[in-house]
């Protein structure tokens, strides 16, 4: 019993230490870098770099490294800073042969941001199905929510928590007509009234097919979108934009990202290399001439520019100075052979994820040896036999310094007498 209890103590201490010590370590040791953004200028047909340093100073450069002042920078990006250019009266009439109409720019300029965190997360599986054709300009949150339970869609009125029978039957029938298999696995939408119009919900059914639900004048419209999509659908990011260029982004389980085009739901894979949606951030900017994809993560920033027929025009990749210096990473490997993370980048859930350190084998080995050595010294100082509790050595061999601290805290097995110390 004491044996179990002692290793329970060691286990408890290991979990807490492996969670907090690396966290504290990186809070103290992680470096900083300047904020960097890369834009593609259709005017100069080159990349522009905007850098903000720790003192709040802005630097503007071309990709060749020529310094620009703010005004040049702004006039090279006419779609992004249209307001300024129009005010100065310097808006070019045509760019690359395409006429620029400043008042129509909001329809053709779109910015979409994707974060790994939005892939998964705790949510309450009730859907606000908005009225997409109410006749009023402003959207309103409806007075009922939809739940897709085992065999049907149910509407619950918010004012008295009652199920609306008629509406539920109406929607269930519409789902069944479209070939939907209950229950739903996941449902995605942008539930906010601050958008120009409503595109409703994208719902993944029990067999992995994707459906699109819109409520217009109280009537459901359910359309099958994707059937037998081999990589499997991981996430759909719906983007209502007044230009109606695309329904949004679709991420599959193999790490591919697709643009879901309006109005036929066809998928265009984005031309991104080395993009891992579980770890990297993606920004998609669209302007009247080009698509512009920025991938940020893994200490690098890469930008791909395509034209509207999705042919790649230019690519650029910039390595950013690493946030974690090599010496700090060596120190981490020396002290922490693994760490436990509560939060992970691609989910909003809290977990306990064990992640082993795979870098710097030598530093790790040295760390474990140092922990072993300290433990030997401690046992010697306490006058304890090295043969006592042999499993301790296993703990130390696997967990290094975490193990050392945990074992020190747990102490020896109570009641065992120290060995007689021989006179030196």
């Amino acid at each position, binding site marked *: 019993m004491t044996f179990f209890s002692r290793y329970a103590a060691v286990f408890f201490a290991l979990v807490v230490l492996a969670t907090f010590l690396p966290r504290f370590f990186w809070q103290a040791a992680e470096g900083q870098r300047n904020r960097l953004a890369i834009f593609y200028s259709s005017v100069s047909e080159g990349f522009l770099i905007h850098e903000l340093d720790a*003192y*709040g100073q802005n630097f503007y450069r071309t990709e060749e490294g020529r310094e620009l002042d*703010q*005004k040049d920078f*702004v006039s090279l990006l006419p779609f992004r*800073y249209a*307001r*300024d250019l129009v*005010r*100065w009266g310097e808006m070019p009439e045509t760019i690359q042969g395409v006429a620029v109409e400043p008042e129509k720019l909001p329809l053709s300029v779109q910015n979409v941001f994707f974060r790994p965190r939005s892939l998964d997360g705790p949510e309450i599986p009730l859907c606000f199905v908005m009225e997409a054709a109410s*006749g*009023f*300009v*402003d959207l309103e949150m409806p007075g009922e929510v939809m739940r897709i339970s085992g065999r049907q869609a149910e509407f619950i009125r918010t*004012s008295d928590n009652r199920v609306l029978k008629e509406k539920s039957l109406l929607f269930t029938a519409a789902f069944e007509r479209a070939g939907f298999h209950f229950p739903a696995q996941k449902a995605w939408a942008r539930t906010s009234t601050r958008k120009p119009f409503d595109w409703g919900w994208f719902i993944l059914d029990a067999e992995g097919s994707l459906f699109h639900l819109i409520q217009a004048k109280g009537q459901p419209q359910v359309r099958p979108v994707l059937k037998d999509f081999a990589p499997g659908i991981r996430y759909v990011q719906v983007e209502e934009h007044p230009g109606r260029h695309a329904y949004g982004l679709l991420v599959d389980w193999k790490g591919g990202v697709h643009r879901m085009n309006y109005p036929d739901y066809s998928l265009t894979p984005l031309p991104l290399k080395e993009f891992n949606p579980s770890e990297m951030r993606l920004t998609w900017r669209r302007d009247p001439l080009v698509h512009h994809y920025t991938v940020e993560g893994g200490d690098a920033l890469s930008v791909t520019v395509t034209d509207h027929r999705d042919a790649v025009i230019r690519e650029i990749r910039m390595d950013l100075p690493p946030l974690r210096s090599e010496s700090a990473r060596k120190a981490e490997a020396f002290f922490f052979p693994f760490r436990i993370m509560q939060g992970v980048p691609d989910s909003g859930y809290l977990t306990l994820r064990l992640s082993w350190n795979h870098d710097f084998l030598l530093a790790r080995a040295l760390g474990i040896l140092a922990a072993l050595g300290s433990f030997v010294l401690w046992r010697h100082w306490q006058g304890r036999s090295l043969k006592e509790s042999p499993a301790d050595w296993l703990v130390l061999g696997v967990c290094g310094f975490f193990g050392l601290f945990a074992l020190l805290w747990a102490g020896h097995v109570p009641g065992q007498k120290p060995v007689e110390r021989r006179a030196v």
Partner: protein
Amino acid sequence: MIIESFFKKISGWVLCLSAVLVMAVVLPRMFDLAFRQGAPTPFILYSPVKDLFFLSGSTPDGQRVYRDETGRQYDRMEFMMATPLFWYRNVFAWNSMPETIQGVLITREAVEEGYQVFRYRPQDLKEPPVPLWPLLESASEFSDLRLPETMFWKDGGLVFENGLTRKKDLEMTEKVNNALSEAGFSFPVKALWGNSTTRKPHDDGYFIRDAEGSLFHLRQVRGEPVCMDTGIRGIGEIRHLAVTEDRRREFYGYLVTDDGRFHLLMQENYRVESLDLKDFDPETMGLIFMADLLGRTVVYGDEEKIYALRLGLDYHPVHSYEEERIQGLSSGASRVRSMLFPFVVQTRAEYGRGADLRLDFSDHTSFAGILFFLVLFMVIRKWWKGTFFFRLHEAALLFLFGIYGFFVLLVQIYPCFEKKGQKSLFGLR
């Protein structure tokens, strides 16, 4: 021994009074929590089509109701059609905007440009909790406003501190204070108002009141501080001023003077337009100002009453309306409340933000409550000890504190218990 008994006495009173204090804070709060009812503030708009005020509110059971000031009910669409200058986006989308209203030609651009809304709340009267401001560039080439490298506060003059070096920026401080004194400013700075956010269409700088009560306008134009004397005199002492930067650029903002009047500070020559608001009390009432193409609407009020006023383009009243609101407590509940609690200790500042500590006495009905608890206490006394009599300080507690005193006596946290042998005033203990 005097010290000894003094200690005991004061200790007893401290305990007793703190119990009363805690009860006077907590019990009314619990009462309110249990009996409070609420209804959202109705939204009032002026209909230039029908020359009436239109209200959108909700009934106690959560139903939305649209009606006009005469009580006639409408549906949502009719409501929007009656107030087309506010809902212009919808009305234009339905293609049902009248061509002219009151003889004025209506175009989408004119409506959009004529539209402005701002709000005033009583807590705006208080100085901001952290009085630190950036002096933004008001004549920048670029349309995005950007934070400068310094921020300033008032300490007699204006003191600038640089965010890079984290030291006082002596050069800037001197430049600004020179600009102030050149404009005829008499130090020290008494009060300063401005809108320090960068999320606004343009920057109108700060307004500063000097030692003599004059108002000055400070801006940064192309890196240089520019100060102007507004020449505003004779409207009383300015208590609050808000800068409402808006694309319309009709006025800089509004000001509230210490006589409780509400004025607009116009952009042309710093002219002051005083609005004649009936019964407006800046300490208790919130206000919404809505400008549209054809006139101005001012809606103000507190929890009890709500006033609406329509002004023409020349700020002369055209139409007015007032209405009683649903009370937070029903009349029965509020009578019971004032009977139960002879006074209430408020720890929150009522309309401003922050803490307070003050007594709110209830009206005369609280005597009924006090009498009730007096009798109740006597009954209990009779039941427990066989006599109606009680001591002087017990009577005082009951009379002064009503229900609070009753509870204090009930759990016996009252002072002066140590007179063991002595007889008390009423002869029995």
